[in-house]
């Protein structure tokens, strides 16, 4: 099998969300001596991108998109031993996410977290109603590249500002990019409180994270 034909079959398996076929293909490719980095970059990643386009066209539904992402993440994990020597392979970055204090709405935040990890970020989810101090602690401990803050209540939106202020006071604001979101949150609000990014839904959250990481 030609390499190009092989990679197309990998892409196709991702799009069809055929976990078994994908796993078989990948182990066959490794056995045949195909460069694992090529499989990741020209196969798996392109497959996911195609899935993303189909999702935008509403041809693929959200749970399917998430499944495709998880499937690819698993395969990548299994390729880690082969890839670890290769400096070109790494996760896109560490994304810390939380719903702010006083707010227990977590479905949107969970979706954002799922899509981010499905698209190659390492995600640490701090959960719901998380106080600013806890977020500061975790930022210090984990040094994430991006921090995502969710608020679903207009009355808890000020808690997003509070987190930013807490990070500023602790002198670590510049170390992390901050993206805010949630139904009542707007781009204007994000600007007003000094956030670096805003996204109205989970897939644009991934785009915005990529933008902040200089990946797009």
């Amino acid at each position, binding site marked *: 099998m030609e390499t190009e034909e092989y990679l197309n079959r990998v892409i196709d398996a991702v799009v069809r969300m055929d976990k078994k076929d994908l796993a078989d293909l990948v182990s066959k490719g490794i056995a045949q001596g195909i460069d694992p980095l090529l499989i990741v970059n020209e196969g798996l990643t392109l497959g996911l991108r195609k899935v993303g386009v189909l999702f935008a066209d*509403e041809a693929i*539904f*959200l*749970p399917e998109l998430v499944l495709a992402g998880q499937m690819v993440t698993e395969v990548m994990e299994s390729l880690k031993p082969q890839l670890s020597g290769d400096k070109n392979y790494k996760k896109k970055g560490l994304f810390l996410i939380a719903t702010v204090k*006083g707010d*227990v709405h977590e*479905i*949107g935040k969970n*979706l954002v977290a799922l899509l981010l990890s499905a698209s190659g970020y390492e995600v640490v989810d701090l959960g719901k*109603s998380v106080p600013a101090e806890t977020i500061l602690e975790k930022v210090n401990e984990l040094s994430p590249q991006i921090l995502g803050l969710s608020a679903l*209540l*207009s*009355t*808890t939106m*000020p808690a997003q500002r509070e987190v930013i202020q807490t990070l500023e006071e602790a002198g670590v604001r510049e170390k992390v990019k901050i993206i805010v979101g949630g*139904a*009542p949150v707007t781009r204007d609000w994000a600007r007003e409180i000094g956030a670096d990014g805003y996204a109205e*839904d*989970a897939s644009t959250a991934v785009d915005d994270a990529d933008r902040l990481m200089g990946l797009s």
Partner: protein
Amino acid sequence: MNDDLKKIHDASMRILEKSGMIFHHPGILKLLEQKGIKVSGETAFFTREQVMEWVSKAPRRFRLFARNPKYDFVLGDNHIEFAPGYGAPNILERDGSKRSAVLSDHVQFLKLVHQSDKFKVNGGILVEPSDLDPQYNYPVMLYYNLTHSDKFIFGMEGKADQVNMTMDMIGAVFGDRNELIKQPRIMTIVNTLSPLRMDQTALDTMLIYASNGQPVIITPAAMAGFTGPITLAGLIALSNAETLAGIAVTQMIRKGTPVVYGCQSTAADMRSGAYVVGNPEHVLCLSYAAKLAKAYGLPCRGGGAPSDAKQLSVQSGYESMMILLTSCRENINYIIHSAGIIDSFSAMSFDKFIVDLEIIDMVERIGKGVRIDDETLAVDIIREIGPGGQYMTSEHTVKLCRQEPWNPEIGLKGMKVSKDPNSDILDNILKKKEKMLSAYQQPHLPQSIASALTDYLQSKGVDKSLLFL
């Protein structure tokens, strides 16, 4: 209970036995343990006997008392009461643009709700005003509810300090807390956090309301495929389990405390993840919830006239009618979100509020059904007019032509066609709204009570300028 309901009930009992329910509240967990419920960490596991025994202590029906007794009503049996849209932080304008709601919008809605004879209830969060500090937003809104309407007061779920302020204020109007406990004067929604959890704020609210004898509505809002199973049977069984567990806890707090069986579970849009209300699944969930509540002998809440539409439109019309009609056909006792709510509970629209009053009116007419007696069967008149005759000029028709058929206030009927029928109906909507607002008269509240309220709020740090809009 028919076989289907029994299957759902049985599944709910197995869920509470096997999966249990998390209560993020040390006080409630202690209470559960005291009552012999098995608690492990924050999870409580109820046997079916335990759940149903506590649920059976809840009253089948109860009376709610308004400041003006003309608006008192009973919740339960097949009696239906409407309540307006609730909780939205935005106003959706006629042109489809959205803006943050402010206190003056809340007050304008209070006036409209007060003016409409469809409601015996006023208040709650008619909109969530962006110009109020979240520290005291609910007490300030409650203050306006009390000063602008003498209908029954709908409350809100919130942090313990705000809910305690609510009870102080209600006490200031209706007598102290010892008086309060005798009569329900304020009622609120308390949400579960699906799947199978209740959070601290919700439980604080429940604790304070129930211990003051004020009713709560236990309401799950599970989303099929996200926070509940994607199959409706499982979603309904899960929601039922949560509601029953919540109701059981209210009875542990205070035996016989008035409580309502709520359900707001619905589908999710699997293409985007959005919460959807204008779907057939919502109709099916609320139907089953009503049937279950009635089988348990509990008053129920659900439904309304919500829509996922982003503007007053064809879609907002058909979705709202679908949900409201079903809510009434199922005799849901307390129908929140009956007017004004749009955009999946995210916004209120003044136009839609007026449209929904018309929908309520139609649905009420349907609910009254067909009166069947000698007079209405009109066999004599049919004989008199005979085959091939006409009824238009008969005395029977002339006498009843104004009261028998339903007449719209804003909808266009008949043969008159203008150049722009759409703007005609929009004009009718605006006219009706303005008529209602100009007819509004603030009900009397004794000066001593009004100043007690303003003094109280100022003592809590509320700015005086907020209290005299």
